């Protein structure tokens, strides 16, 4: 047996792939029961497993697959039709085969499990002869019969290329797959199995080559022949590097392929009807990451089927199609892989989450009331959080979303959730393309260089002795003020015990870093600026340099630093830069732990604070009617001033032309429901121009016209929504005065109902009236 070990390994790997294929084929066959090619494929696969198990003497496997093959034979011959009665046992057979294979993989023998009952069921089902089939499928079935050898014989010794394909006119394609012996998988010709270790060493060697190439480029030469050679080596090295990096990549298919079966089983056990749509299965990412996203994604899919999609009857009563739609979508986006799990189910009840968060003490009721919906949804990532009224066997036990988030973040990814009541939920997972090659920021600190994973880096702040951001002491710890927030800082030189330079504190750079839910600043001397010209666009993922360096953002190859140094817990690896220098990669999570920063805030408060931070600074303006209003500063894209003559009217809306587009204009007073101003049409600033506060796309890109822009100020009080009125979200104290905050969410709706130019609110002379 041990001599066979190698062959058995291969048999196990191949059979495992066969089973995945079987799952997919069977599901496809359920949708199109008359697809003879699909049926032929299933038949072949089962037959292959059966033949191999006979060869290795796995009798249980042999007899089980024999029963399955017998049943499939009846299907193929049109003796019985595929329905739940038939597909159920077939799925069970696939599971049983999988389980036996796993046992063989672990122990080398088939194990004690007894599948005789299942084999019997398969035989009984096969015996229920229905002999009712359409002429077409009978013809098709005969074509299939020619594709596969008779049940009882071993794999056909000669190819079946002589199959009389022409006799099955409805099926022009079977010949494509047929001229091969049955025992071969169709894909075996274009791909081979290669040891992962070998690929890794190739990648290492290519890295070496790149370094040598970089060195070569620095060689001064007057010999034109040498110049040519260097250029060629340069080009070839770049291409080689790209190709080598690609060997690490695998399509996400390897994860997605499991889902048709998972969804089918779940749908059956939860009493749902689900139409699974998979998009972008060919999206590639690092093979080491494929495994890491499997469990989180499975969880999200389970959630979507069990919690998201409603039972068919409920869906019908809501006017939705009986079958819910579950979309799995993967695509590359800005150097990352985005995977969306989207259902068209009931959505997450935001208010229930809010109430639950309060009940669980995650947030106090007052703060909770202020949190916007998208922020509230973040609570479902808290450990043990579930709003499912009933715990089912599938999900709702309150373990899960936090684990999903933890797992995804562990590989440097993020999870976002968006939900619309009644319309469905979208969970968006973003993961890096690879962990081996990451974009990083290289910083200088006390004459050393360090790399920071770019995924954690938020922004860079330059410290200047004369004004600008500066570091302040707070209860013995250093903090920096960032747009009203206090962020703790760590002096990297001090933390690492490097020669401390006071220069860094006055002229250095603060790298704002976010790890899990903590934000902190890392004070360094500065960022690395180009050591060597980049070989390629180093921002472009998957194609670019392992060791290239652009201005300050580099794509680096993460290399292990060995157990001796990894135990320190503050370095996650090292990399070699384009100049050949070795640079340590900082483990920001570890640094955060080791630095033991004073807790400036409890975590939940941090969540609330973030919500508030979004509306902390305001642009204060005076309207034409003299009202003092405030607009959250981060909703403002720009301020504009233009002559009132530039105002135009189109389709009953007022617009101002900007470049090649138009900005819709509404008047601040009309939003507040203030009647026509006392000044009538002379509502402009004193010099006959109009001040426009242009809002971002979330607010429809609208320009709000005001008389005067007064100030940018931080709110001094909490938003008092009690005082809300038409178009006003609430009132707060800004600059010592009560100020009305524009209700931006109402703004978009309001623009639809703004009276026409000709109405009483037409304070600006329209272009028509001027001409």
């Amino acid at each position, binding site marked *: 047996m041990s001599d066979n070990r190698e062959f058995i390994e291969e048999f196990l790997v191949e059979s495992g792939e066969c089973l995945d294929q079987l799952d997919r084929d069977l599901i496809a066959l359920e949708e199109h029961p008359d697809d003879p090619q699909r049926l032929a494929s299933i038949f072949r696969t089962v037959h292959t497993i059966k033949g191999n198990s006979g060869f290795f003497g796995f009798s249980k496997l042999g007899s089980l697959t024999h029963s399955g093959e017998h049943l499939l034979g009846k299907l193929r011959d049109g003796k019985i039709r595929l329905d739940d009665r038939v597909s159920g046992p077939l799925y069970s057979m696939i599971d049983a085969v999988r389980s036996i294979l796993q046992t063989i993989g672990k122990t080398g023998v088939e194990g004690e499990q007894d599948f005789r009952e299942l084999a019997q069921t398969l035989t009984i089902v096969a015996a229920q002869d229905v002999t009712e089939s359409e002429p077409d499928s009978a013809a098709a079935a005969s074509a299939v019969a020619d594709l596969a050898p008779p049940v009882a014989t071993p794999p056909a010794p000669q190819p079946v290329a002589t199959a009389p394909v022409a006799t099955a006119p409805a099926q022009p394609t079977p010949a494509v797959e047929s001229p091969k012996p049955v025992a071969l998988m169709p894909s075996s010709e274009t791909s081979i199995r290669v040891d992962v270790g070998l690929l890794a060493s190739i990648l*290492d*060697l290519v*890295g*070496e080559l790149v370094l040598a190439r970089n060195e070569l480029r620095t060689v001064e030469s007057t010999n034109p022949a040498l110049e040519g050679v260097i250029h060629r080596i340069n080009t070839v090295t770049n291409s080689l590097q790209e190709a080598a990096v690609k060997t690490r990549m695998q399509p996400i298919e390897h994860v997605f392929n499991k889902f048709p079966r998972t969804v089918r089983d779940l749908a059956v056990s939860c009493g749902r009807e689900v139409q699974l749509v998979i998009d972008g299965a060919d999206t590639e990412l690092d093979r080491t990451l494929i495994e890491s996203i499997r469990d989180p994604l499975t969880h999200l899919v389970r959630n979507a089927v069990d919690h998201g999609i409603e039972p068919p009857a409920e869906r019908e009563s809501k006017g939705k199609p009986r079958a819910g739609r579950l979309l799995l979508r993967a695509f590359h986006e800005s150097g990352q892989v985005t995977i969306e799990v989207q259902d068209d189910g009931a959505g997450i009840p935001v208010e229930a989450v809010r109430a639950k968060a309060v009940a669980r003490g995650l947030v106090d009721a007052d703060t909770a009331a202020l949190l916007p919906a998208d922020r509230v949804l973040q609570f479902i990532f808290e450990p043990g959080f579930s709003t499912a009224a009933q715990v089912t066997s599938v999900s709702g036990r309150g373990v899960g979303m936090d684990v999903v988030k933890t797992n995804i973040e562990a590989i440097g990814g993020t999870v976002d959730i968006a939900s619309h009541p009644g319309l469905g939920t979208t969970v968006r997972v973003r993961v890096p393309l690879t962990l081996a090659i990451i974009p990083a920021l290289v910083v200088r600190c006390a004459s*050393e260089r360090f790399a920071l994973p770019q995924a954690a880096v938020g922004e860079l702040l330059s410290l200047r002795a004369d004004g600008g951001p500066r570091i302040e002491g707070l209860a*013995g*710890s*250093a903090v920096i003020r960032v747009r009203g927030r206090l962020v703790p800082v760590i002096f990297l030189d*001090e*933390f*690492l*015990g*490097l020669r401390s330079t006071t220069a860094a504190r006055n002229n250095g750079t603060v790298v704002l870093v976010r790890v899990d839910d903590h934000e902190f600043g890392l004070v360094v001397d500065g960022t690395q600026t180009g050591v060597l010209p980049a070989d390629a666009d180093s921002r472009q993922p998957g194609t670019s340099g392992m060791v290239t360096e652009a201005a300050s953002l580099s794509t680096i190859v993460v*290399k*292990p*630093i*060995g*157990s*001796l*140094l990894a*135990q*320190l*817990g*503050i*370095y996650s*690896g*090292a990399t*070699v830069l384009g100049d*050949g*220098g*070795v*640079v*340590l990669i900082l483990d920001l999570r*570890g640094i955060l732990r*080791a*630095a*033991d920063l004073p807790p400036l805030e409890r975590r939940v408060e941090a969540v609330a604070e973030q919500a508030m931070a979004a509306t902390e600074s305001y642009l204060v303006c005076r309207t034409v009617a003299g009202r003092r209003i405030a607009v959250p500063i981060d909703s403002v894209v720009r301020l504009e001033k233009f002559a009132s003559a530039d105002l135009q009217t189109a389709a009953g809306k007022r617009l101002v032309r900007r470049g090649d587009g138009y900005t819709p204009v509404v008047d601040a007073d009309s939003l507040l429901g203030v009647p026509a101003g006392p000044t009538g049409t002379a509502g402009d600033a004193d010099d006959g121009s109009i001040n426009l506060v242009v809002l971002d796309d979330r607010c429809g890109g609208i320009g709000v016209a005001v008389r005067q822009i007064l100030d940018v100020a931080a709110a001094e009080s909490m938003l008092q929504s009690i005082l809300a009125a038409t178009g006003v979200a609430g009132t707060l104290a800004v600059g010592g005065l009560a100020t009305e905050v524009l209700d931006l969410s109402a703004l978009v709706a309001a623009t639809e109902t703004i009276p026409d130019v000709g109405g009483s609110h037409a304070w600006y002379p329209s272009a028509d009236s001027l001409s």
Partner: protein
Amino acid sequence: MADIPHDIRHCCFRVGGDCFAVASTGVTEVLRDGRITRVPHAAEAVIGLLHLRGRIVPVIDMRRRLGVIGAASIASRTHLVIRLHDDWYSLLVDEMLDVIEVAEHQIEHPSKPSADTPNDAVIGVFADADKLIYFLDPQRIVQPLARQREHFFQKQGTSHGTV
């Protein structure tokens, strides 16, 4: 010992005034120069990282590791790169000497390995014609240099108070 161990070849090197040796089976290569990158917070004897054909190798200064007084310039010294399980290490030595063949029975073993001294890695002594050669166990060279996170935390804890 009756059976002759197959790894009787040893690489000898000089650190300070003494002669040391490691089994040649673990030695992957010897190189003269190499740019070393510091690793803050690593043990004192771990003076940095060396880039060796795509591999990042910690460099152990054998002078510091063996408690030899006085520092020699790194540039004049030699990297003896050894492999230990899956990790590689560079032992920075003053000078490479011969490769010698010494059978196990010719090596005298100390009755009790001296723990917690710079000599804790010495597992045997061989009296050559003109000098003593100390045999080192690579595992024991590296082991005490591992710094646990706890150790690190304590250090940080104390320094943090002065911030």
